[in-house]
């Protein structure tokens, strides 16, 4: 199919030689933008799950001077749990076990068997009732009145801001993809129009011999498909090592705070289909451009 002989001398058509390069660049950026968008989506899902229905209360095991607070710690924990369980909207409040703490600290401290020497606070994991509005500021103030050493982790607040930022970036990614589609289409239109001008005598000849518009359009479609596919596959070849490198770097972060896009079920089909999507987009654009041009002929 790709070697179909063309009656139009595209081989001398230097005006269109930049098309594969443009498509290569577009597909490269589109793959990175899609990977970024899908990674963001996955991370957002993860973050949304993290903040929905839970918060953490810390009880320090050492005072500010670094002296251990001994039995006072457990008393504070018990009072905090008692207070929280009485508060409307709170379903569960449990102290994290040593094992859970070890798992939590693993990304930062590694595989430490015993970290009792470290001045780590005790943590109380609080589960909120679903769809029950809780005033966190008020809850924080009341808790600090009853147990002055307790501090409520307000990560929900900054995570919400981070989610808003990520949502914004996601919208920008979508916009980038739309711009890429627009730029690719404009590039194909420009390249096709230049080619139509270069091959005007040959096109007129085919037309005069009784070639239907579709006969000429198909020749342009094949030419555009061949060039876009070459460019698209080159873009894919360039993007793959970049994605793999970024994924490897992200995976090293551990803890799952940022997730990669590879885990998404449609990630690889999307990545591998992009050169073909770009080629079909180019072919459709070229076909329509030539068809509209030929309509001017008698």
């Amino acid at each position: 199919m790709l070697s179909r002989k063309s009656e139009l001398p595209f081989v001398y058509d230097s005006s269109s030689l930049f098309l594969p390069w443009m498509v290569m660049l577009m597909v490269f950026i589109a793959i990175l933008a899609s990977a970024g968008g899908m990674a963001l989506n996955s991370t957002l899902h993860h973050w949304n799950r993290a903040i929905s229905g839970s918060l953490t209360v810390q009880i320090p095991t050492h005072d500010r001077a670094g002296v251990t607070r001994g039995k006072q710690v457990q008393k504070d924990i018990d009072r905090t749990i008692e207070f929280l369980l009485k508060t409307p909207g709170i379903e569960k409040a449990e102290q994290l076990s040593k094992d859970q703490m070890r798992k939590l600290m693993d990304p930062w401290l590694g595989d430490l068997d015993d970290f009792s020497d470290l001045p780590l606070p005790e943590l109380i994991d609080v589960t909120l009732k679903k769809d029950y509005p809780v005033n966190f500021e008020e809850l924080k103030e009341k808790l600090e009145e009853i147990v002055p050493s307790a501090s409520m982790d307000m990560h929900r607040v900054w995570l919400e801001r981070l989610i808003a930022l990520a949502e914004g970036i996601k919208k920008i990614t979508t916009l980038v993809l739309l711009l890429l589609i627009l730029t690719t289409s404009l590039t194909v239109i420009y390249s096709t129009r230049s080619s139509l001008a270069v091959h005007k005598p040959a096109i007129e000849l085919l037309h005069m011999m009784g070639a239907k518009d579709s006969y000429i359009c198909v020749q342009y479609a094949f030419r555009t498909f061949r060039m876009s596919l070459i460019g698209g596959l080159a873009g894919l070849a360039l993007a793959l090592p970049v994605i793999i490198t970024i994924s490897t770097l992200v995976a090293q972060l551990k803890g799952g705070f940022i997730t990669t896009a590879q885990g998404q079920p449609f990630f690889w089909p999307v990545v591998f289909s992009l050169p073909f999507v770009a080629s079909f987009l180019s072919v459709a654009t070229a076909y329509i451009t030539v068809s509209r041009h030929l309509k001017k002929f008698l």
Partner: protein
Amino acid sequence: MPQQKIKKYTQIASFEGVGLRYNNGPEVLRDIHFSLEPGSIHFLTGESGAGKTSLLSLMYLDNRPSRGHVRLFDTPIEGAPRKQLPFIRRKIGVVFQDFRLLEHLSTFDNVALPLRIAGVKEAEIRRHVGELIKWVGLAGQINSKITTLSGGQKQRVAIARAVINRPALLLADEPTGNVDDELAKRLLHLFIELNKLGTTVVIATHSEPLIHHFGFPRLHLEQGRLQVLPGVTSPFCVNPMESEKEE
């Protein structure tokens, strides 16, 4: 050549009060009235700039008349839907003055072009194109690129391309301008052969020896106006009287 049947038409071409001007310029053709009967053969004569190429361009549907009515193969062109025009064009073979060959293709592919456009099968194309190229004396150049051929050879390729489809109407614009007298006569004999098979032929030429030798009736243009002149009795003239009927 593929044995394409030529349908019977009342008239191959009919021009009634046709005028042609390019953009807002002066009329290059004025009040053209004539008709081409099926199976006729005519010379189209006139000085340079008289409008021969413009008249031919109206006949091969490259231009629309500024006024008047053109009918080709009994179809009024002004009313014909655009989709129908390619099928009308496929019935017309044209030999252009400047050949208009596709230089990146071989002799074979240039001659095969009208058949490929018409969707003829490749096996049939190979058979007919090979035969015709041999007949015009270019068997040795069948796979040569056009750029390697001489002017005369290019002209023969252009003629072969125009007749390969056995058109119902053959229009030739100075088809013998680049060949010697002997070859010119041989090429004209090819047109006569086609004419005998039913093709209507119009040959634009300046060559007085050819006009006199063959004696076909003439469509003579002078300052954009057309006169139909009778042919002289000649063994080559199929039906010299028909132009007189038109007058």
